[in-house]
């Protein structure tokens, strides 16, 4: 299988005149995309400035694996993801899915491919002009279906006794309707009078026979004018052979030996009649009987009429050795490939199919990766075959295996496209032992474009136990809110992440804002924080301070006064907020009824003195502000002494 790598296949050419003189540099963006630009590591010297003026400076954005963004591919991705998750869940429940379950999953995948193909076909029909792109896609999907169904027959479905030919013949019939084509031509042409006169009449019969459709061959033969039912008539003879051909099926409680006996008997009869000269008068019938005898020569003769080596192989074996098992198939491949020009003539699809006939699973996957241009098929096929124990879990030093490798590649081909992120998450969470690490890396790269999306990503992380990532997302959202000066939102993210130190920063910010403007901007949140205020001392203080305002508004001056005193005495308030707190005392002191007793008033005075000593906090103020502040303090001192006097007297 050694072949020279054609590097051209994976070459992208960038056109940029600047790069004639400067090297091309590139940087990964994300997923399968990168940015390339002309650059240099050397400096332009002062006396000899670089001459870049006549060329524009370009940044080249390079993408690949974009084929998954087409509407039909999106259906494929989203539908098959459900099946994939189904497989993994089944595996989690029961250890390993049973053969019949795997077969069901495989058919699900295939039906998705089919429906995608149908949709493409509808589009193709609907479009006015010939669409090359659509045609190519149709080719790809039908090819994937072809490969998948063969793999399903050979690797997954194989019946208990190992016989596969019935299914293979069905596979040929379904994918290569050559026979139907000839038949249709025969019926369609009015020029020839009857179908039997048509030049394609015999080709139709031969190809039908090669596909094992004996009853249809008999129908066709009946149309021939010379057809007679009398004994010793060549037509009657072949009709009898066709009628009596035993068909093997393990459903019909028929043992292989029993069938083989019957079949051998029939085969001997065919050979006997052929050599007995039954068909000598009718060369066409003779050819037909040679097909029935499994004559290798005739198969070669008919290659022009009928498909490629694998079709021929199947037809030949069907009449030569119908009970052949999967493992014996590869003995026969070489002969047929030689008929078709040998190994060198094999195209990519041939190689994939050949690997399948040889029962070499890893080769199939390898060839698919190489030639299909999409990671979809190798990934999903490898996953199913992994559960059939056909793709071994070879843990190497680097710790990855084929299945994991393919899943990661498939997801990174999807991750270019933002909208696929939930799909990528689903695949990565089932990719093997390192899935949480991959997932951790991936979720960090999901753009948190909205609060809702952040909530969705957090939900996923919580389910998978990625608590560090949850924290990180909360922090990012918080920083984003801070950047837009949305303190309330930032605080709610802190609470979600239980980030007390940052909650403190925000609470202090809110207090500062109040101290400056006299207005609380986020009352609506602070008043409803509930038990969350206990998260940080500053927040508790903020909550208590709001309570003071509420008490004051409700005219419960005594309680309000006590609360305020407590706040000051407990030293919980940040120092630069003290002036505001003390000023809040002023209206209380100026009320007629006494609120603070002697002890309390002296306490307040002590606070005022402390403040006087710490002049530092006024440093940031302007001259006028400082003057105002001093005036206020003087006023307050006066009020406090008055109150003290009042208290002593009473």
């Amino acid at each position: 299988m050694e072949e020279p790598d054609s590097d051209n296949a994976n070459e992208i050419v960038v056109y940029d005149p600047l790069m004639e003189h400067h090297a091309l540099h590139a940087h990964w963006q994300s997923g399968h995309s990168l940015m390339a630009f002309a650059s240099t590591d050397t400096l332009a010297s002062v006396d000899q400035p670089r001459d870049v003026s006549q060329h524009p400076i370009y940044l080249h954005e390079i993408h690949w694996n974009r084929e998954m963004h087409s509407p039909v591919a999106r259906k494929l991705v989203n539908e098959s993801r459900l099946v994939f998750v189904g497989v993994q869940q089944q595996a989690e429940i029961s250890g390993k899915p049973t053969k019949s379950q795997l077969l069901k999953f495989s058919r699900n995948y295939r039906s998705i491919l089919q429906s995608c193909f149908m949709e493409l076909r509808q589009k193709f029909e609907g479009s006015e002009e010939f669409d090359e792109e659509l045609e190519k896609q149709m080719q790809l999907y039908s090819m994937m279906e072809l490969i998948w169904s063969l793999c399903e027959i050979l690797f997954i479905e194989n019946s208990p006794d190992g016989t596969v030919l019935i299914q293979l013949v069905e596979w040929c019939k379904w994918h290569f309707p050559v026979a139907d084509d000839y038949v249709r031509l025969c019926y369609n042409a009015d020029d020839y009078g009857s179908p039997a006169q048509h030049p394609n009449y015999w080709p139709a019969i031969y190809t039908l026979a090669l596909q094992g459709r004996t009853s249809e061959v008999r129908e066709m033969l009946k149309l021939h004018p010379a057809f007679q039912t009398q004994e010793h008539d060549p037509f009657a003879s072949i009709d009898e052979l066709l009628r009596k051909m035993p068909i093997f099926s393990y459903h019909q409680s028929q043992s292989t030996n029993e069938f083989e006996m019957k079949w051998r008997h029939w085969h001997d009869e065919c050979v006997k009649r052929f050599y007995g000269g039954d068909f000598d008068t009718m060369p066409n019938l003779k050819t037909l009987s040679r097909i029935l005898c499994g004559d290798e020569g005739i198969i070669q003769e008919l290659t022009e009429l009928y498909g490629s080596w694998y079709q021929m192989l199947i037809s030949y074996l069907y009449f030569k050795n119908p009970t052949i098992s999967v493992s014996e198939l590869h003995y026969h491949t070489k002969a047929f490939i030689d008929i078709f020009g040998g190994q060198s003539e094999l195209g990519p699809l041939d190689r994939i199919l050949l690997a399948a006939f040889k029962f070499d699973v890893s080769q199939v996957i390898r060839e698919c990766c190489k030639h299909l241009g999409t990671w979809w098929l190798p990934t999903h096929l490898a996953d199913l075959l992994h559960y059939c124990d056909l793709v071994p879990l070879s843990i190497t030093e680097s710790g990855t295996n084929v299945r994991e490798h393919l899943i990661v590649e498939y997801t990174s081909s999807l991750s270019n496209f933002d909208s696929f992120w939930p799909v990528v998450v689903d695949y990565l969470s089932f990719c093997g032992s390192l899935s949480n690490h991959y997932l951790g890396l991936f979720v960090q790269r999901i753009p948190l474009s909205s609060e809702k999306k952040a909530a969705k990503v957090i939900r996923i992380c919580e389910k998978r136990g990625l608590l560090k990532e949850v924290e990180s997302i909360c922090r990012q959202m918080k920083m984003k809110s801070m950047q837009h000066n949305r303190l309330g939102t930032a605080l709610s993210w802190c609470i979600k992440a239980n980030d007390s130190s940052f909650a403190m920063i925000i609470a202090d910010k809110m207090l500062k804002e109040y101290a400056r403007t006299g207005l609380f901007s986020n009352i609506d949140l602070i008043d409803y924080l509930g038990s969350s205020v206990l998260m940080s001392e500053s927040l508790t203080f903020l909550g208590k301070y709001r309570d003071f305002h509420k008490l004051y508004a409700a005219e419960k001056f005594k309680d309000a006064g006590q609360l305020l005193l407590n706040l000051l005495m407990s030293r919980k308030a940040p120092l630069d907020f003290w002036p505001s707190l003390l000023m809040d005392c002023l209206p209380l002191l100026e009320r007629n009824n006494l609120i603070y007793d002697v002890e309390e008033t002296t306490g307040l005075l002590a606070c005022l003195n402390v403040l006087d000593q710490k002049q530092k906090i006024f440093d940031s103020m302007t001259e006028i502000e400082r003057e105002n502040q001093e005036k206020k303090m003087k006023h307050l001192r006066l009020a406090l002494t008055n109150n003290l006097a009042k208290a002593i007297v009473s």
Partner: protein
Amino acid sequence: MRLFQIFAFLFSVLVIKYKDATDGIGFSSDEQNAGDASAKLVLLLLCYLANGFRRFSFTWPQFRVELFSTHFHKHKDLIHDVSFDFFGKRMATCSSDQSVKVWDLNENEEWICTSSWKTHSASVWKVTWAHPEFGQVLATCSFDRTVAVWEESIVENASSQLNHIWINKTNLVDSRTSVKDVKFSPKHLGLQLASCSSNGVVRIYEAPDPMNLTHWSMQHELLCKMSCSCISWNPSTYRYHAPMLAVGCDDPSNSTGGKVFIFEFSYALRDWVKIKMIMTITDPVNNIAFAPNMGKKHHVLAIASEKLYIYNLNPRLNGEHNQSSSEQSDISLQEVAHFADHNSKITRLSWNDFGTILLSTGDDGKVFLWMANYMDIWKRVGTIKNDSLNPFELELVKNVPSSGETSGQKSSRISFKRFTQTRGPPPEKPLEPVYKGAYY
């Protein structure tokens, strides 16, 4: 389960339909007037496929070149570095024209330059983003011997539009020579910044309060004794891995010995310790990059010198069993690959998000993509190269200024080109015939 029923059902419908179509064509007498165009088409196509399969040649479409974005401000000189934020949605570019530009991807997937400002008084070598959990923060380093830290501030203007303004938070002026590289530490180490300068000093700064980016303190100064060109933090978050830094030197002399140093932070000494020097690499090193670590126990380090080297670093995790057996963790180096495909010195390296594909750029004007299969065998999987201007391209460039631009943008010189491959072979071929049978 119900979904599967639907699928299965759908499938059966398809089969039935198909059968009907073929049977009808084959054997029913009234099929001629059925005129089932769709069924015919299936048949035709399948026939086409059937006949085409024998020598099926894959002709993949060529890369389509699309000019997709108009241009805004101009860099007046070559771009030195491009850096993407963690989501690949914002991009910063720096240039010899002393400026930095920030670009945002808009709703239509176009890059829009949202700010551009002069950052330094000389060429800006590198620009790098901090992790978004520290806000929108950039660091730049320049030939003018400084490192600058910038933070974005968004101001809503009168017409409710958002203006992006980048505020200079600090200038780190400790270096006496040109600062060649600057990198933020992985986020679990807090807000740290490593820079290296051409006189061989690596400096590590830390902002103790992530809310106050004006205050940075220099924590450590590591000496390499020769001109440093590049620096890379080990991104591993595995808890037994101590913080690690790799430094590359571009001293042109081969006689000065190994050019790659690996430092590790020792919690016991509270200092960085030089734990390894790669002796085999004596050519100047231009770039160095740790791969994103996806939970593997070893680290992968790529080095760009005259050749491209890929090393595996296997730390012996003594912390795992006995905490105090030795002061510093031992590490073993293992060269897993080296390539001289560029035929010239390699200038730049970049890893993809998962650390599975490495990109290298060389002075030969080519960009190569490298990938390891699961057996850790590295292989080249793709190439990007420049071609001199072809006639088609000339046309394109000529048309650029006239494509719906205002006169104010006429003089602009930076633009984007997007290469989109609609369907092509993935440039990675992880499973090569050479390693046939490697699965077993």
